[in-house]
């Protein structure tokens, strides 16, 4: 019986200790009515938005910024199913348009806040010895893409299509490259992880994804084939904190915000 009580007591003590630590750090926030700003953002924005969020918290001491990073289509479905958020930053216009169609966001509200292009990435030791884009067609190469429903995956397939129209690559270029796909990942960060670990020979991701992983090798995709992704951001029509949402978006579009985005490999839109 004694042991039973010890078993029950231990987690309680642990939890109390934890909550004491967290409450003490939030005391100042409570004093001025803590507010929570919820931002749903595309997975590729993880690093940049985390930094912008930290800055926002330091300029707005009473605000805690909470992020939900996932594939844009996952975020849009979650919002559609009633998830509550203040801001939605999508990696493509399609999901923003879907959100408008569902009445989650008002028309003409979204603003383009950055551009992003795609690159081919290779593991640090380049096990398949990929030197040019043409090497992607070599049979047996292990290529990992984001799934075709994920913006990054859609863009990658568009790029392959663009290259197939060029005689240098050949009209079956896309088919031959896609035959090497060993996995369609659920978001672009998973593609980076598989290449970074050396499990895949190559992957196609946003150039911004390579900033946090400098060890991966990069092959540039020429501008005439590349797809420029435009990221729209908007406050939700039912945002619990519309004012904070507007302030956050202004922050993202400000010089400071755009500088942070540039630091993480994005091309600023402003």
């Amino acid at each position, binding site marked *: 019986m004694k042991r039973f009580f010890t078993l029950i007591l231990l987690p309680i003590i642990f939890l109390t200790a934890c909550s004491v630590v967290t409450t003490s750090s939030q005391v100042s926030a409570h004093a001025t009515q803590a507010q929570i700003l919820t931002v749903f953002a595309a997975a590729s924005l993880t690093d940049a938005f985390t930094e912008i969020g930290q800055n926002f918290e330091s300029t707005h001491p009473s605000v805690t910024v909470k992020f939900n990073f996932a594939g844009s289509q*996952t975020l849009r479905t979650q919002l559609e199913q009633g998830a509550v958020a203040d801001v939605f930053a999508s990696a493509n216009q399609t999901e923003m348009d879907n959100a408008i169609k569902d009445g989650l966001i008002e028309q003409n509200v979204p603003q383009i806040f950055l551009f992003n292009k795609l690159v081919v990435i290779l593991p640090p030791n380049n*096990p398949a010895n990929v030197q040019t884009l043409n090497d992607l067609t070599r049979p047996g190469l292990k290529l*990992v893409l984001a*799934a075709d429903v994920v913006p990054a995956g859609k863009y990658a397939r568009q790029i392959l299509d663009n290259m197939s129209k060029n005689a240098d690559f050949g009209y079956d270029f896309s088919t031959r490259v896609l035959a090497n796909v060993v*996995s*369609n990942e*659920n978001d672009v960060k998973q593609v980076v992880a598989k290449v970074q*670990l050396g499990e895949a020979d190559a992957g196609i991701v946003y150039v911004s994804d390579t900033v946090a992983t400098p060890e991966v090798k990069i092959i540039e995709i020429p501008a005439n084939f590349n797809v420029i992704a435009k990221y729209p951001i908007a406050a939700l029509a039912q945002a619990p904190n519309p004012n904070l949402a507007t302030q956050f978006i202004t922050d993202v579009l400000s010089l400071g915000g755009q500088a942070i985005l540039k630091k993480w490999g994005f091309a600023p839109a402003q």
Partner: protein
Amino acid sequence: MNSLRRFFRRLASNGHRDWIFIVPSLFLIALLGLPLLALILRSFDQEFFSYAFSPSALTALRLSLVTSLISVIIAIAFGTPLAYMLARWKFFGKSFVELLIDLPVVLPPSVAGLALLIAFGRQGMFGSALSLLGISLPFTTTAVIMAQTFVSAPLYIRAARIGFAEVDIQMEEAAHVEGANQWQVFSEIMFPLAGRALIGGAILTWTRALGEFGATILFAGNLEGVTQTMPLAIYLGFERSLGVAIALSVMLVGVSVVLLLLTRRLEKNHGIHQR
């Protein structure tokens, strides 16, 4: 109907005490039941059949059934001797082995997937040796089976260990005295007496393998017909259209319900047989 009347009579006779049991139970039953009910009801007004019987859904279903069945067979073939050892033998490091078997049950599957990748990935600790032999595990159906076995086999081993431990050791010793060999002891005594536990454990392992998601997507990736099992197709279907995801989910719930009913039926028959 009769039992319902009895239930209400119970309520009427000493109602105020029974509520202590009924109210908390109903709360949890609602939490467990309502989401499934909503899922099934929602599937009616979607184009259920066109989604459920689309080629990619059927491919995922077939891959799920085949891989999970192989995982169960591996669990039985290699787990039965292990469970017997754990039930009957005393050996150095036994408690360590027991801990090792309990761990995958409580670990998040994503941890399992990451561990598999770091161990058996192409550039993993042991995988790099395999790749010298020309074997590369990630992104293959073998990787799916490994992930499923990793998370589900412990369920069978645990069940079988308990089943074997419950068989009276004197019966086994008597059979040995009578001159039975190890196989005869197993086929004549251990399997019939521990059978219920073994079958129950095997079906539980099967359903767990069927539902495996986290370890699979990390270690095996996602490719239709090769590594895209039902749970992966559901996750991706969720991003494509909710209808597909709901149809696939209802199918998976259906398969799991059939398997669980089968376990109960087997347990019941066995129980009657014993009496």
